């Protein structure tokens, strides 16, 4: 293909596809994490705070140590710590996991902004992408196909989780805790422990999602970094009906929707920029309305989840 600089509407399509892949990655990671958490019977609304905390930690660690991969690891660990906090409080009797999630959302964001003040200006090393578009001369195509390995890690994770939920002991035990805590306790399982581990794992993945934001795309740290991706992942999980592979497809869909705004700007449509921005939220709300029913529980929802009842 000969490289022309102005691809016109093809450029828009390309931008949407590239954007879909890029923007979907944090959605994918966070939603996979939340799927695990919700499959065990807990809902963690604090993922937004976890995501932001992960972003800050990842960026700071990468800046301070010079290694973006170490940054990613730190981001995951920070997320896991917040997940542990969520689980610890929710394990106490009579505590509502929805409220704890909101509290963590506030706490996580506050903590991230507080500790992250010194890191707003400087630029640290970024995560490298895989140059899958190097066959082309067109810089637009090249940058579109510069895909982060985190995307593939996310995809592999989705496949692994989908398989694991049905075919491993951990998968069975996890689902049991989320479907019938009484039955799980009756056979001697510690439901609290299962949910704690699931929430920690969910936090770790959310932290990774945040790390992706600050270390790859958009690739900086500031207080407007996240625009609700963590929270939207909750809706995404419901939309995907708690299936890891459907989370993957849904993430692509949401990523594409988010990418429409910036993409159409390149062909000169600047009006209504913010409305495109609202597209993912409207889409989510619409899907939620569509898939909810007043009389029946959401199909596929883990029976122990408080928000699906």
């Amino acid at each position, binding site marked *: 293909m000969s490289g022309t600089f102005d691809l016109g509407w093809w450029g828009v399509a390309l931008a949407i596809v590239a954007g879909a892949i890029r923007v979907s990655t944090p959605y994918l990671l966070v939603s996979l994490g939340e799927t695990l958490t919700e499959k065990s019977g807990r809902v963690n609304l604090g993922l937004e705070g976890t995501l932001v905390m992960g972003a800050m930690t990842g960026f700071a660690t990468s800046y301070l140590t010079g290694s973006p991969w170490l940054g990613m690891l730190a981001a995951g660990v920070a997320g896991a710590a917040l997940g542990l906090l969520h689980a610890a409080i929710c394990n106490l009797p009579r505590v509502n996991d929805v409220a704890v999630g909101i509290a963590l959302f506030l706490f996580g964001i506050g903590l991230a902004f507080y500790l992250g003040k010194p890191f707003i200006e400087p630029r640290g090393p970024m995560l490298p992408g895989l140059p899958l578009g190097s066959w082309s001369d067109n810089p637009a195509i090249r940058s579109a196909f510069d895909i982060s390995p985190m995307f593939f890690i996310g995809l592999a994770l989705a496949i692994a989780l989908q398989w694991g939920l049905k*075919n*491993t*002991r*951990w998968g*069975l*035990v996890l*689902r*049991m805790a989320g*479907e*019938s805590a*009484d*039955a799980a306790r*009756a*056979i*001697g399982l510690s439901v609290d422990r299962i949910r704690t581990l699931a929430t920690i794992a969910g936090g770790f993945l959310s932290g990774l999602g945040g790390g992706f934001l600050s270390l790859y795309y958009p690739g900086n740290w500031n207080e407007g970094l996240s625009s609700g991706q963590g929270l939207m992942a909750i809706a995404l999980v419901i939309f995907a009906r708690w299936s890891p592979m459907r989370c993957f497809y849904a993430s692509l869909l949401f990523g594409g929707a988010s990418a429409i705004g910036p993409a159409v700007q390149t062909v000169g449509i600047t009006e209504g920029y913010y409305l495109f921005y609202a597209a993912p939220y409207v889409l989510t709300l619409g899907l939620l309305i569509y898939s909810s029913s007043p*009389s*029946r529980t959401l199909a596929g929802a*883990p*029976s122990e989840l408080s928000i699906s009842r």
Partner: protein
Amino acid sequence: MMDQHTPAPPEVAVVDLCKSFGNLRALDRVSVEFRSGRMHALLGENGAGKSTLVKCLMGYYRADAGQILVRRRQRPILHPRDAHALGLGMVYQHFTLVPQMTVAENFLLGRERLPAVIDWAAEHAALGAFMARMPFQLEPRRLVATLAAGEKQKLEILKQLYLGRRFLVLDEPTSVLTPAEADEVLGQMRRLTEAGQLTVVLITHKFREVMQFAQDVTILRAGKVAAHTDVAGASESGLAAMMFGQSLAPEKSGSSARTAPPDAGPYLELDGLNAIGDRGTRVVVDASLTVRSGEIVGIAGVSGNGQKELVEILAGQRNPQRGAVRIAGRPFGGTRRELERYGVSLLTEEPFANAAVRSMSVMENLAFRQFDRPPLAAGGFIFRRRALRPFAQALIERYGIRAGSPSARLETLSGGNIQRTVLARELSREVRLLIMQNPCFGLDVAAAAEIRRQIVRARNGGAAVLLISEDLDEILELSDRVLVMAGGRITYETERSSADRYEIGRHMTQGLARLSA
């Protein structure tokens, strides 16, 4: 898998077992011997100690004193795992299955050690071989949620056998089964004991089951062993005498005979009601019935045949798909004004869950029907909280509700007193339509008798009464007309004078084949 090493199933004995909860002596030096390879019935009223006894056996409670002997050796059972290791298993009243998982997954989950990765092909093959040896069969790939109650009960039993338990406690296993299913399950269990495969302890309150299937029976009363006998040498009335300490004088016909002929037209009318249940299947199908003022209509039926949903429709907790409810000829929508105008009182099952607010005080709960009328309200808008206490006090005294104070939270009351609270609230107004569902469940004999008296009094006062109960004796004792609900339909109707227990029982099973799973 079934243990092939020890030929005989366990023989279990408890010696001088004691267990107290605070001041309550649940078990008082109880000694019972459950002989190997026999079916042993455990009879007793609610609160007699049956479930405490078996929970001690199973390691859920630790007895305060006494011994548990398994195969003639004393064993400390401190945890369910200890019981399981000794081959003791229990099938509970409520299902411990996970509805959204398959039969096969439910089997596997009970195992002590599961491999990290599950080879489903091998597991399914092993399950198939296992079930071929069993008296019941189930399709391993089916979702438990799609099983009927009888199948779920069989699955529970199969699970225990799969896990190698050869001493089985069955806690009221037939409470959700039709007479035919109950006979099948108990019959198979009896056959397994006779074949020397199992020792079975059957907790029940149905004399018929004891007489028909058990070989030994132990009767508990107030935490002590009241009697122990061979079934062969016992009779139903003999058992009753041992259970209640006096001969069972049936409170039949006499006290509850109709004192005045009912009015001509129907007061309550259900016309072709159809409803969809929580699982998306039809649970009430073309149900029609009438209740006239001054008569008691009883609906008999095994639990799970649409009764709960029918009452929910009347209580405004479920919308019918089709059909109508009429009171005094007018359509009934369940609004507050209509409830007041038609004098409707409802006593659903599980009143704590369905009709009360646990975090509110007793006096607030008592006010649900009257809070928007004088003396509790002024102008229909202002709520006079100060009037609550005297209002409640009167009801508390009249109905004998035992509560710390009227402002005590409802959840601090015992189950019986919560029931009394809801009863007081519902019956203390002018009642012209009384709808009751399993009103005496879980209550002691005296309280149950009191409620039955209230029902008869309401009817004699001209109220139309609809009584839905799983206790056939209760229905036969109180009703003027008996209906049967099976598979969501009203399948039978008879006057009390011509009511035949076995005919009714037969109709309780019909229509189930037509109910889609």
